[in-house]
């Protein structure tokens, strides 16, 4: 019913505008779409050298683990369930950080922890943790500086805004990052067998 019909007289401009507003269909799709972003893939990797990223500052969003690295295949695994001893020369302690880059991609960064016996490469490990600490409060990218023998962080000078963190728990995110066969929890794991020349 137009406003003219309701009143039988010419409407005021305000009354007509109110009537038009009452027959308007909603255009706020962001509120009504009924679609949510579902996280199904989480990369398990170091930050790329060109990538500005942030590390979640909460201690509950990080986990110390034993990392197994097959250098030839450039593959990373997490060792659990007592198999660490059998893979000693491939294993190293590492800290898993929850990260997000400027494009909003969530990833888990396994940063190797400094070794207590101060073997070589310690500066790489120490500087990686320093990069992670910086990335808790700033957008940072890290370049592996071969001359320096350490990671060189670069902090963004401009205000790039706060990172948008996923709503999933860290445990659920880890499950996605380590899905498939990325956890070695028995000597029957294909990667172990391959390493031992059994396949």
């Amino acid at each position: 019913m137009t406003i003219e019909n309701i009143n039988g007289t010419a409407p005021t401009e305000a009354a007509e505008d109110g009537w038009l507003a009452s027959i308007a269909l909603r255009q706020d799709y962001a509120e009504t779409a009924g679609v949510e972003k579902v996280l199904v893939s989480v990369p398990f990797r170091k930050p790329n050298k060109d990538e500005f990223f942030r590390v979640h500052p909460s201690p509950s969003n990080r986990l110390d683990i034993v990392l197994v690295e097959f250098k030839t295949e450039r593959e990373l695994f997490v060792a659990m369930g007592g198999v660490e001893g059998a893979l000693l020369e491939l294993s190293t302690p590492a800290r898993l950080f929850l990260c997000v880059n400027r494009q909003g991609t969530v990833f888990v960064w396994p940063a190797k922890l400094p070794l207590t016996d101060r073997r070589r490469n310690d500066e790489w490990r120490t500087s990686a943790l320093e990069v992670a600490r910086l990335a808790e409060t700033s957008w940072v990218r890290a370049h592996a500086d071969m001359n320096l023998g350490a990671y060189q962080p670069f902090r963004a000078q401009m205000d790039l805004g706060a990172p948008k963190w996923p709503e999933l728990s860290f445990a659920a995110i880890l499950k996605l990052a380590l899905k498939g066969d990325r956890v070695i929890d028995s000597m029957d794991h294909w990667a172990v067998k391959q390493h031992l020349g059994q396949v």
Partner: protein
Amino acid sequence: MADDPLGRFVGIWVVDFEFIARPGERPDPVCLVAREVRTNRLIRVWRDELAALPAPPFPVDENTLYVAFSASAELSCHLALGWPFPAQVLDAHVEFINLINGLPQRFVKGGTSQLAALAHFGLSAITSEEKAQWRKRILEGPPFSRDEAVGILDYCQTDVDGLAALLPRLVQRLSPRSHWADHALLRGRYVKAVARMEHTGVPIDVAALGKLVSNWAEIKVALIDQIRAEYPLWEGATFKHDRFEAWLIGKRIPWPRTEAGRLSLSRDTFKEMAKAYPIVAPIREVRENLSSMRLSDLAVGSDGRNRTSLFPFGTKSSRNAPSNSRFVFGPAAWLRALIRPTRGRALAYLDYSAQEVGVAAALSGDEALQRAYDSGDPYMSFAVDAGLAPAGATKRSHETIRSLCKTVVLATNYGQQAQALAERLDISVLQAKQLLQAHRRTYGRFWQWSQAAVDTAVLTGHVDTIFGWRLHVTPDTRVTSLLNHPMQSNGAEMLRLACIFAVEAGISVCAPVHDALLIEAPVAEIEVAIERTRACMARASRIVLGGREVGTGVDKVVRYPDRFMDARGVRVWELVVGLLERQAA
């Protein structure tokens, strides 16, 4: 009847005129047939009786619905006869388009004519051959014999009876839509404004048009001669395909081809290739100036006004789609110089400023984008917000980066990807990616809304404007076309409301042009008319955008004896005028 969306009306009259329509002229009514659909009361009025009637022979008050197919034609007949307009109009043609808009051709065979609409619902009708035969006889004009008069009235009645059968089918299919009847009547109100605007028309310098037509062969050659030395692609006034192919090979330009393997010479191909390869632009410009100019098609009436159907709701977004060759704003920009107010009159061209950006900011609720729009220069603001230019940068101080950012802002509305953007801007793909990412970061809320709009469209199978103009989404629908649809289609709603308000306020609107209005007034009153029109445009914006305003600008004010000049067409117009003067000398 509580469930009848048209139950509020005491009477529903289905109406059709037959009329003589010559290019550019107002219609000359030949007969009228009208039927009230509930009582079946029938009225048939022949030509001589029509002229004697001071008003329609049926009620046109608020409680009576007037139904016609392409109602602007019927309403133009009202104006020609000096009859009042009906208060409430439902245009069955517009509603049929709204029913099928976006559906693939296989579902909507035969276009959107009344015969096609009847066929769509499986309703019988006269054959298109029979219809064409009667139309031909009517256009031949009087004198009509008595038998012919009866035949024409009978033919007109077949349209009325067809429409009476069509109406309940349309209502049944469309009424489940939220607020459909109110929206349909609002569209009908716009069709009334369209009839008024078509009736008004655009004043044309008929003498100049006559000179152009009679000297067209020489003008064509002169336009080509401007670039012939550098681009020897024409023989006389004929574009030679083999020369063009050799030229492309020499310049190492890969050119799209038709399915038959020939070089594609379409307007769209030239438009896109000229963006990617600037060396092609002069060829495109000359071809545009020549090929789009079939001056004899320009519809100018004996009163010197360009007048043609605006084809309201003729595009998927519901914008008008007037014929490019008949409408003076259709051909090359330089021909707009033919627009000239008559003695004592003035014209003004008012447009919405960056309407798409303003609509995007308001509907998405992105405050950063709204601030950028409100700054008056959304493109420079984007550059600053994204860190691509320092705070305080202006169009003058950072022209290049502003130009880049303008292209990015507009390209994002169409879902343009980095590769295409890189080609368009002649930058690396990496740089193009960075610019697009910068836009996504800076206006995250807009992107979230834009994606949600596409998701909603795909999930529900359609997307509606604020006042219910629907685009169906099918597997054939391109997602990139959906990205810009809310901006285009709600922008169209805004301009329609502006037309309604301006015309109903008594402003003489000559024509709507995309997101602009051309208005006319006596020279002494043009400034007042401009302010009143801007107020109408601002009000329309507030209604569509929930209180936000898209800015309006006065692009041109032209007072007699000056003529309308589009900046893009000045050079060619002066060239042509120079040629005509030399010939006259």
